């Protein structure tokens, strides 16, 4: 008989080994799914994970895309991981991402056609504040009225989507756009455009900010009292209370930080890769970032790697769509599967399998 025995402390080896194991298992299960869809599983997996980086025909286009896609995912996931570590569940990053784009983009558009140096910094600050403010709604409701932050933050995503529809059809619509929905294209507004910093690499300000966020989060979690309190609250809530950790302050900080980072990601996306505020500029990064955060085991360096891997599945998925006719939804299911396997194999970190009969105590 097989039974689980709790480890005295989490296994360090398995903590590092589970994400690659989960990726491997997902490839097998995903391959089965692709085979069921009538595609060659090996070709599909190779197209998703190998071709975007190493196939001579596609790599030139795909490699820069890696940073473009990974930037927002990492930025959002870093913010989410802080809260997740402390048991504070902000799952409405998608909404904060949209609000960052609306507020930041709106500030920029209000200054059109100025070419001052201050335009873009002002937009970045406004974008961060927009996401922060949107996340403050669940934070304040949680601290004041003990309202569940999971539900409120998630429901606000739908509110943000409606607001996005409203502004792209009304307030922020391009006055020279001939009545088409969507804002001015930021490419026509150089002072507010988030261009590639080094041509052909995909590196833009959002990616730089994401890398900075990784470093800051690493220092915060390992060297700062606030990071210690976050980890303590997650691992031993009772001990944290005895140690005098103020839970409300932590909630405000974690939700605020993740909201601000998601807002920044939205602003960088809308002024760069997306190009304009439109009804459907958001591509679900706020939700995929949840997978990234867990795949990275809520560790900044892990999230950096996980973000790059998840970006690869996006690009490879598009490539597979184009080359093999693999449906876009298959990639979405594939990403969801990854999270399942990750959570399942995580049992190895905290428990150990014992074979044989249970001996009487």
């Amino acid at each position, binding site marked *: 008989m097989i039974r689980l025995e709790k480890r005295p402390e989490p296994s360090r080896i398995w903590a590092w080994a589970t994400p690659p194991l989960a990726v491997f298992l997902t490839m097998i299960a995903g391959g089965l799914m692709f085979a069921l869809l009538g595609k060659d599983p090996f070709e599909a997996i190779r197209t998703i994970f190998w071709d975007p980086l190493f196939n001579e025909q596609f790599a030139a286009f795909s490699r820069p895309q890696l940073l473009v896609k990974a930037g927002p995912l990492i930025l959002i996931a870093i913010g989410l991981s802080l809260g*997740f570590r402390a048991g504070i569940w902000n799952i409405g990053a998608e909404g904060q991402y949209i609000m960052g784009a609306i507020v930041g983009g709106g500030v920029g558009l209000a200054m059109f056609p100025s070419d001052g140096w201050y335009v873009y910094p002002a937009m970045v600050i406004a974008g961060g504040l927009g996401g922060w403010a949107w996340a403050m709604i669940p934070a304040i*409701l949680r601290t004041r009225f003990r*309202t569940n932050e*999971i539900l409120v933050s998630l*429901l606000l995503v*739908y509110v943000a989507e*409606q607001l996005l529809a409203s502004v792209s059809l*009304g307030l922020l619509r391009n006055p020279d756009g001939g009545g088409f929905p969507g804002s001015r294209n930021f490419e026509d507004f150089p002072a507010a455009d988030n261009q590639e910093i080094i041509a052909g690499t995909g590196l833009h300000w959002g990616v730089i900010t994401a890398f900075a966020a990784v470093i800051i989060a690493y220092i915060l979690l390992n060297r700062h009292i606030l990071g210690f309190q976050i980890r303590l609250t997650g691992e031993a809530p009772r001990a944290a209370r005895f140690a005098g950790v103020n839970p409300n302050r932590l909630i405000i900080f974690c939700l605020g930080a993740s909201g601000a980072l998601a807002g920044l990601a939205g602003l960088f996306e809308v002024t760069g890769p997306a190009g304009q505020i439109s009804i459907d500029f958001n591509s679900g990064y706020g939700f995929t970032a*949840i997978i990234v955060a867990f795949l990275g085991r809520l560790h900044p360096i892990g999230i950096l790697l996980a973000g790059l891997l998840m970006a690869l599945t996006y690009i490879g998925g598009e490539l597979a769509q184009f080359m093999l006719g693999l449906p876009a939804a298959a990639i979405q299911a594939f990403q969801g599967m990854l*999270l399942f396997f990750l959570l399942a194999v995580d049992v190895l970190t905290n428990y150990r399998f014992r074979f044989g009969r249970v001996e009487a105590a």
Partner: protein
Amino acid sequence: MDLAGINPVLLLASLMVASTPILLAAIGELVVEKSGVLNLGVEGMMITGAICGFAVAVNTGSPAVGFMGAALGGALLSLVFAVLTQVFLSNQVATGLALTLFGLGLSSLMGQSYVGIKPPSTPEIAVPILSDIPVLGQILFQHDLMVYFSLALVAGVWAVLKYTRIGLIVRAVGENHDAAHALGYRVVLIRVACIAFGGACAGLGGAYLSLVRVPQWTEGMTAGAGWIALAIVVFASWRAGRVLIGAYLFGGVTVLQLNLQAAGVAIPVEYLSMSPYLITIVVLVIMSADRSRAALSAPASLGRSFHASS
């Protein structure tokens, strides 16, 4: 603007139809949470039920078989959650989210060849004699079978939880799984059964959307209904009767804002469309502001993993 064009009788009748998907999903989730499990994957199970029900109904031509397929699909997906959280002891919040993300992807994958098809129509059943009552008859007694089924389900869940031995065991497992285990109840098995029941209910709710309410298949068509069902369980303080009130309240807001949109009220469409979500948040705040009651009514073991360690 033409407010006079809104017929209050039709409004109330469509309220019942609009509420049914959320009512079904919420009553299922109530049972799951009563057993001490927080399954945040309602949205994923609903949308999977929506496409399973739709596909089965289109292929067999029978909405009834479709609903059965939906319940089965929702239950099967929920078993993934059950295995992960009960056997592999994974975090329930994260696993629930994974279920939603996976369900959304899986459903659009399954639904590709079903876009733009009309499902076989579900017949309305006019209850004899009662449906002839003026006004009330039209509001209450001229619906399809699922509306009545959802009401019967609420009554059934209420009665089982309150009066039967099974209900008592479920509640015991949800309040204190260690004590229930010590008494000899199979905590994991009971929870798996409750999760499967919740999945089946969510699947039925989703299928009601795709087969009756809309009736059509579009990607992401649940549009947060599963999350609202979760909110309604909190609103209801984990009581079956109040789930009914919550779901009908929400259905009322939805129908009213749709009617206001149609009547061309001066409020922009987007603001009307976001009103159900905003009202759900406001209601959640009001319910949770009352500290003592919120703390007392939630099952004590809600969201905690159970591992029988000696």
